[in-house]
């Protein structure tokens, strides 16, 4: 299969970024929107073409999907260890190309309406293109180092876009928080990469992931503190992934990141960048699975399950609709992680892997839709808070319907997309780990509840007094909603198990009726409860909130995780570590330096008199110099 044209997919947004970035001031805002949209349309077309070519024409040989790659050596470290640049084409990278393209295209189109009249319109599109380029580069990376480069690039674009409203203090703080927390996690990632490079001598995914390859077979060669060094490396890499995918306890940046413009939240903090962590684990899945009997993979499973539950509980209590969606994203990412964590490798054993990717795919569609719908609502009422919304279904019919579809999809109501992928996840969990299965089912109920809580809160309930009558958003915004709604309905019917599997061979997936019935039933219970509580304004919810008392407050304050971080940073790190070091630096290191400086200036002052201005003195010095040199080199220095 000729894959060289795939390089164009990331190149186009890069060119768009450069164009918009360089001619920022000279381009009319209307034009820059079109440049962005059409550039991405080209990339999307190529992505679909690549997906078709790969999945239906060339990809499958003898029933197994092949991996194609093209790379050139970029930097040589030693004879064996080098960093390549290139593109890697396999089922998950092609799937990610499609996901990134579709969501990014929708967000580009949507932004033309949403950002209209904004001062930095062109800059916004430039940043969006930079992000899209980085994300493409990330999914196509051929080795750990390349993925790390693009990993940081998406981090930077995310930073730029969260802080897009840079006059708002909260936005700046949120951007910094996101950057620092993920950087902190990436430090683990980098160390993991270095360990892998040192002990295996390669960064290349194909070499690393080969189940019969030397890396996986020799995992036990070196151990450290009772675990193989490779396991340690995988755990560190997972820390990097957990940072990007907002896994507990590195999740604290995601809710704050909602300070960015809503289309950005849809693209980066719901559908694409945050799944990079899931993608990373999937990318290294053979290593995670085979090394030390999946020790690192177990960690992934439990962290994922806990995050799913943790975030879902917080989501129930939030009043800012974007924050509800943010915690919902975190919860769903937890689902994907836990699915990977309980997955096997061969055939139907690998249903977890398949389910995780499947859920990544469907979630991207309906979560992007939820965010864009929320953006449409925010656009209409100029507030993020539930208390300012209500009864909007009359004014915004399209937003209402599409939001409802997305909510049903995420709640797992058949036959919408979320139902199919969530069902597969629960099947995988049921077969491998009952505890995680129960957590998963409970989270499914919570998900349905909090999602319909905001749905009813926004579109039903009591009408508020609005400054001016809310009206439906323009076509540029509603069209992406409709497209995504269509995908949220249909994406579930894709037979994913034939395309994206751990061993790349594909298998028949069957609906497990009892499990599906349980999950759907729990979801419906959640919806009904939300209906009782929130369909019409009543005091029921407040009474229950009061009944739970401190527990409710605890969850609504996000279990005080921000405060814990603050405490550790300020009271322990700054006070006990940084301050003494700073003091030592100031007193002794600086003191010595200042002392040397003062001495130098003093010496300079003392010798000033030598330069008298008299030529006879100069002549004397000249002759004295000659005499001294002659004496030294003729009599004193041994020739």
């Amino acid at each position: 299969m000729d894959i060289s044209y795939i390089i164009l997919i990331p190149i186009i947004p890069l060119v768009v970024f450069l164009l918009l970035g360089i001619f920022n001031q000279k381009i009319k805002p209307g034009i820059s929107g079109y440049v962005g949209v059409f550039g991405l349309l080209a990339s999307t077309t190529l992505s679909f073409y690549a997906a078709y070519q790969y999945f239906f024409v060339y990809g499958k040989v003898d029933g197994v999907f092949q991996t194609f790659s093209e790379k050139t050596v970029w930097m040589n470290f030693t004879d064996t260890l080098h960093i390549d640049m290139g593109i890697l084409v396999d089922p998950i990278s092609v799937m990610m190309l499609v996901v990134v393209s579709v969501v990014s295209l929708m967000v580009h189109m949507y932004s033309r309406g949403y950002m209209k009249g904004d001062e930095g319109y062109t800059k916004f599109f430039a940043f969006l293109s930079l992000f899209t380029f980085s994300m493409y580069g990330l999914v196509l990376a051929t080795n750990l180092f390349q993925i790390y480069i693009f990993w940081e690039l998406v981090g930077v674009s995310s930073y730029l876009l969260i802080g897009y409203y840079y006059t708002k203090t909260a936005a700046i703080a949120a951007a910094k928080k996101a950057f620092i927390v993920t950087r902190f996690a990436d430090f683990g990632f980098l160390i993991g990469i270095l360990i892998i490079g040192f002990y295996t001598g390669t960064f290349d995914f194909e070499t690393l992931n080969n189940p019969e390859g030397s890396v996986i077979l020799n995992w036990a060669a070196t151990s450290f503190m009772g675990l193989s060094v490779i396991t340690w490396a995988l755990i560190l890499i997972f820390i990097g992934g957990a940072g990007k995918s907002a896994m507990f306890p590195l999740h604290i940046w995601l809710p704050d990141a909602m300070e960015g413009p809503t289309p950005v939240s849809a693209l980066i903090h719901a559908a694409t960048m945050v799944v990079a962590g899931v993608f990373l684990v999937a990318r290294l899945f053979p290593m995670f699975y085979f090394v030390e009997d999946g020790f690192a993979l177990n960690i992934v499973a439990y962290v994922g399950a806990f995050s799913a539950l943790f975030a879902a509980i917080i989501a129930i209590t939030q009043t800012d609709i974007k924050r509800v969606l943010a915690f919902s994203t975190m919860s769903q990412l937890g689902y994907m992680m836990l699915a990977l964590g309980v997955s096997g490798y061969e055939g139907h054993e690998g249903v977890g892997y398949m389910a995780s990717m499947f859920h990544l795919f469907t979630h991207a569609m309906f979560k992007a839709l939820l965010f864009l719908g929320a953006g449409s609502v925010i656009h209409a009422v100029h507030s993020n808070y539930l208390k300012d919304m209500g009864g909007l279904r009359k004014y915004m019919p399209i937003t209402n319907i599409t939001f409802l579809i997305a909510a049903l999809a995420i709640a797992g109501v058949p036959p919408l997309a979320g139902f199919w992928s969530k069902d597969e996840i629960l099947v995988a969990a049921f077969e491998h780990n009952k505890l995680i299965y129960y957590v998963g089912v409970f989270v499914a109920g919570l998900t349905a509840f909090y999602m319909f809580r905001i749905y009813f809160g926004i579109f039903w309930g009591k009408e508020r007094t609005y400054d001016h009558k809310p009206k439906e958003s323009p076509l540029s915004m509603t069209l992406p909603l409709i497209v995504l709604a269509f995908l949220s309905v249909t994406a579930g019917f894709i037979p994913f198990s034939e395309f994206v599997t751990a061993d790349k061979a594909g298998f028949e997936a069957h609906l497990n009726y009892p499990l599906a019935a349980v999950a759907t039933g729990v979801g419906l219970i959640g919806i009904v409860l939300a209906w009782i509580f929130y369909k019409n304004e009543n005091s029921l919810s407040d009474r229950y909130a009061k009944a739970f008392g401190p527990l409710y407050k605890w969850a609504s304050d996000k279990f005080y995780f921000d405060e814990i971080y603050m405490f550790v940073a300020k009271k322990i790190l700054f006070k006990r570590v940084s301050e003494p070091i700073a003091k030592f630096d100031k007193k002794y290191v600086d003191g010595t330096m200042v002392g040397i400086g003062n001495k130098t200036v003093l010496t300079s002052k003392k010798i000033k008199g030598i330069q008298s201005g008299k030529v006879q003195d100069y002549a004397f010095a000249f002759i004295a110099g000659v005499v001294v040199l002659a004496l030294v080199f003729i009599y004193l220095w041994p020739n």
Partner: protein
Amino acid sequence: MDLSTFLLMRHEIVLLVVILLLIIGEVFIAESKKSSMVHLAVFLFGIHTLIGFLSIDYGSLFGGMFHTNALIQFLKNVLNIGVLILLLQSGDWLQEKIIRVNRGVEFFILLFSSLLGMYFMISAGDFLMFYLGLELSTLPVAALAAYDITKRISSESGIKLILSAALASGVSLFGISMLYATTGSIYFTEISYVITADNLTVLAFILFFTGLAFKISLVPFHFWTADVYEGAPISIASYLSVISKGAAVFILMILLFTVLKPLMHIWENMVYIIAIVTMFIGNLFALRQQNMKRFLAFSSIAQAGFILLGLITGDQLGTATVVYFLLIYIFSNLAAFGVVQAISLETGKEQMKDYEGLYRTNPNLSLIMMLALFSLAGIPPVAGFFGKFFLFTAAASKGYYLLVFLAVVNVTISLYYYLLVVRAMFLRKSDNAIPYFKSKVYMRLGLLITAIGILVIGIYSPIYDYIYELSRNLL
């Protein structure tokens, strides 16, 4: 001997023609149009510079008294470029001078004569030619230093230079004659075969060495520098610190690496000591200077100390790094002097405190000054960093770690005073900052070329590779 072999002296011949043309022009051009002589001089010298780049044969003339090779040609071209920039930077000043006090054309004639002397000096094949070149390069500059006859300080500067130079060249000549006494020859090639390190030869060498040490302003032969720079017109201070010093370093390097190679165990120790003393004295004095010209004078003394780090190696790497450093140093120092001159011409101000708040009023000048100072201080990525870095590498490759360490200490000290100026320009606010002004075309062109040079020479690596290739054969 064929007449065409004289073409080996093309640089010298063309420059001589330029000088003669200017003398004729001086006679024939009407009084009222004298100021256009500046254009003529710049134009003629520009052509001379261009001709210098045409390819040419290498070889020797007059029984070996005069010789050229690729490296010497390259250095002559570098000196030409330096002088051309200098002419551009001082063109406006001269025009005004000619109109106001009806003097000027002799400026070019003296300047070019001095340059001619340098050509002969670096092309010399024996000590006689070398000495003649040395004298020819120094004497006209003494006249030029006293060029501002209306200023007492300028005359003082001229007198100080001529007295000091006379002493230095006398001592040097004494050394040369003693060398003749011990070796029986004045030809470089012959001397290099017979020279041995007996006491008389060592004494002769030391006496000879001081003549060049004077021109390069090595401590303790440097005292004239600050006084002369301060009093002389800025162009001449600039010329002394850049062109004159560059040529002297070059011929010193050739002599040390070839003729005096048998004495290396003597001179490497001498260079070692003088390098350390020069760096420290230059830097310590520079720390306290308030007058920009004196400041640059001491900074150029310290820079000479750094150059000695390359001289000490005695091999191809040393040659290449010294020439490369000289090239960068010419651009950096010309830029710094150019800005000082531009400001002095416009406002007459030459003190460091006058520069406070300059960035707010004259951002372009401030940026060029910053580039120049960064380059002199050796801050990456400007050219000066690479120049110093290579010099230090050369010294370290011979195992002079202590010397390199002391040089790094000195870089740190120099950083302090270079940044003092940058701070004054960029961070300090002043109520009576120099108001905005626009320099004339010549000045702006001159500054632009130096700025581009500073930015490009370091990063564009083929330049260093080229110099390294040229450094293969010295004699």
